[in-house]
């Protein structure tokens, strides 16, 4: 899978809520976190590349080379008071490698979608100014942003790992609007390009083997935006160019300051519980979006993993069983209604070998976005993800040779 292919993959989502902001932010992550309520800043990177906290990289085994590739499929159904619809999509979701750079430090390079846009809305009736009539418009959007992230984790002491990451976010979102008045149409296409870096810092404190704390901050950044505008109209059944402008300076999109705190606890030797709380200070960005108002977002996610026996003889004993839950209250109020997002997750980690920590990680989540109120749409999604989380032990083979 090449970098270009990812950048060109459009419509990774079918959510009508991708209309807002930069689209629906990608929540699919690496390894097992998809099955654990999309949480895990306190988890290590010894059995997977944990992309949620750069500090976790410090726990990569020496001489390990880790690799993670993910795919997902999403089945969305939508309903409002009047109608419903559904959609299935298959996507490539991530590509990542991680490797130690010294006895105490490791790095990862992670390629993921950052946000996805894919919506088509018809029958938006608006008033014509100057008479009693209305006109109908149809809006659609596609595209999304991608992220390439370099993380570095360092083992400060037995109990304390620190990490930092630098992420380059880039991509474009195409929005089309068709306005029909009488028998003529105006077609507006806006292709908006965004790009900039964003920094992340994290730490993990592990007072005991079975207890850990994690914290991550993402620093605010401005995604610099420029827009290409193409306007045509269909008059007398003929399409005519109206306007074409390139590289129009438009307002940057502000990504907020974000912090996550998390905790993990292993108990009864077989269960690991983890929980994350994240706050995203969207309210401070002072942005507005069409009819939406940005507001601070709270996220809470929790997961539980069961492992019978890592060295068990039976395969089921070595399998990992996961369950999780996540909830957030959205970062946008649309006509004074929050777009809450709630999901339940279950998953399996299927070991691929006795000799290393390679897993097939499967996760299923069922979630709801929005509400069936007088205005908004409720979206129900089934999300299935497959991650191949592979570990190779460097330098080991030569020993046998």
């Amino acid at each position: 899978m090449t970098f270009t292919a990812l950048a060109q993959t459009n419509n990774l989502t079918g959510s009508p809520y991708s209309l807002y902001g930069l689209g629906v932010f990608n929540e699919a992550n690496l390894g097992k976190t998809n099955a654990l309520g999309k949480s895990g800043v306190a988890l290590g990177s010894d059995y997977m590349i944990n992309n949620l906290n750069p500090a976790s990289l410090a726990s990569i085994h020496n001489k390990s080379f880790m690799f993670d590739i993910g795919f997902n499929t999403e089945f969305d159904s939508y309903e409002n008071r009047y109608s419903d619809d559904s959609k299935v999509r298959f996507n490539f979701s991530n590509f990542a490698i991680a490797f130690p750079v010294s006895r105490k430090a490791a790095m990862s390079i992670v390629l993921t979608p950052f946000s996805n846009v894919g919506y088509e809305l018809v029958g938006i009736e608006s008033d014509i100014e100057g008479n009693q009539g209305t006109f109908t418009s149809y809006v659609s959007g596609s595209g999304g942003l991608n992220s390439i992230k370099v993380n570095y984790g360092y083992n400060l002491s037995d109990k304390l790992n620190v990490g930092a990451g630098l992420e380059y976010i880039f991509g474009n979102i195409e929005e089309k609007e068709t306005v029909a008045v009488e028998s003529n149409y105006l077609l507006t296409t806006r292709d908006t390009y965004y790009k900039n870096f964003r920094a992340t810092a994290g730490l993990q404190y592990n007072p005991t083997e079975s207890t850990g704390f994690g914290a991550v901050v993402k620093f605010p950044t401005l995604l610099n935006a420029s827009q290409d505008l193409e306007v045509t109209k269909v008059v007398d059944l003929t399409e005519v160019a109206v306007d074409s402008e390139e590289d129009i300076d438009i307002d940057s999109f502000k990504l907020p300051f974000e912090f996550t705190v998390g905790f993990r606890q292993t108990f009864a030797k077989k269960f690991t519980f983890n929980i994350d709380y994240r706050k995203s200070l969207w309210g401070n960005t002072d942005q507005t979006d069409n009819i939406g108002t940005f507001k601070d977002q709270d996220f809470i996610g929790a997961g539980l993993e069961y492992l019978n026996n890592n060295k068990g003889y039976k395969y089921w004993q070595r399998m990992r069983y996961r369950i999780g839950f996540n909830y957030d209250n959205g970062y946008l109020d649309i006509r004074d209604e929050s777009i809450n997002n709630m999901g339940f997750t279950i998953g399996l980690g299927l070991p691929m070998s006795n000799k290393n920590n390679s897993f097939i990680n499967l996760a299923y989540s069922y979630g709801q976005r929005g509400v069936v109120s007088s205005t908004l749409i409720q979206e129900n999604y089934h999300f299935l993800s497959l991650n191949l989380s592979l570990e190779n032990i460097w330098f080991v083979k030569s020993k046998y040779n």
Partner: protein
Amino acid sequence: MWLALLILAVIACNTADDITLEAGETFTDTNVRVLKLDTFDLEFTTFKFDSVQMPLGDRILVGNYTDETFGKTSSQSFIEMIPESYDIDNEGVYDSIVLIMAYDNYYYNDTLNQMTFDVHEVTERIEPYNDETYFYNTSTLNYNENETLGSHSFMPRPMDGDSIRIKLDDEFGYNLFDQIQGNDITDLDEFRENFKGITVKSQDNTNGSVLGFSVDTEETMIRVYYRVPEDVSDIEQYFDLIISATSTPATYFNHIEADRSSTILASITNDQENLISSEDLDNAAYIQAGVGIAPRIRIPNLKSLYEIDGDGSVLNAVMKIYVNSENFSDQLFLNDSLYANTLDRHMDISEEITDYSGSSVFGTLLENSEFSEIYYSLPLTTYTDVILSSESDEDLYITLIPSEYESSVNRTILNDDETNNYTAVLELTYVIYNEED
């Protein structure tokens, strides 16, 4: 509603895979503003083309009518008619000569009045002046005014009649017959030396009609009858003089004129650049085909659209030009359509106005019986873009003329934008797609 369905259908066809949810305006707002504007000033004036070029192969127009607005309008036709052959049986004996003119179904004004047509012999060659190819409505030629070759009174039946037959002078007929039979005339040059042509005009009625006649060689001709004696009985034969209607230079034309001296249009002169504002003409602009009266319409302040904040474009523009019901009748009927042309500053027609698809732009006569409205609906979306993108505000003038403007005498009175009722209006749909300039 059908539009929404159409859009749905289009989306369904194109991206069957995608979500098409009726989201409604509560889920998102449009980024576009649509404004309906109808307060543009319109400038209506009237002028007269100094001449109207006569087309080839069209019709013969003869007659006159009078109305209080346009005065007395008349058309007189000058026609060269030439033999099909110069071969007449030596035994043939002259019988009679008749001018046959077949109706082509065009008429204007009341056909219930009896009309009298007079035919005179033209005394000079029927050809355009100065080696030109065409005649004009103002062209005229000398003819023998004191003597008629024939005269005919009749009730016009332009729709269901076949033709009118005007018996011509037998001395003239015999003379023509004799010279061809006796081989004094054997070709066109010799014929033209002896016979130039005829002119057909109607006697001054108070209020008659103007009638259209065919120029087809099978339908309109001078027919000379003769008899060839045979053993038992004579055989009737004839030969025809016909119109060479499409040959160049032209060999026939209609002289169309009007006397407006005692009407509101008295101020309209043959000076093409003499523009009379609608304010001085009862808040109207005027069209009279054949005579050459035409309106000039200008939208002086269209560029005020640019004063609206944001980037926008005209999505639809229609000029509605109303006609008062007292200004037309079944006899003085309106044309179904008026073609739009641009005028230069000297009021010469520059070009036909076309829309983006390349089709001619014309005003279509529409009737809204509910509001007893009768108006021409003139689609000007493309042309408003021309105005908006032009460097200067001047020299962008529209004129409206009916089809057959050169070979009919229809008249139309168009209300301007200041009249009391049914004022002309430009209805414009303007879409702002970018709020920030």
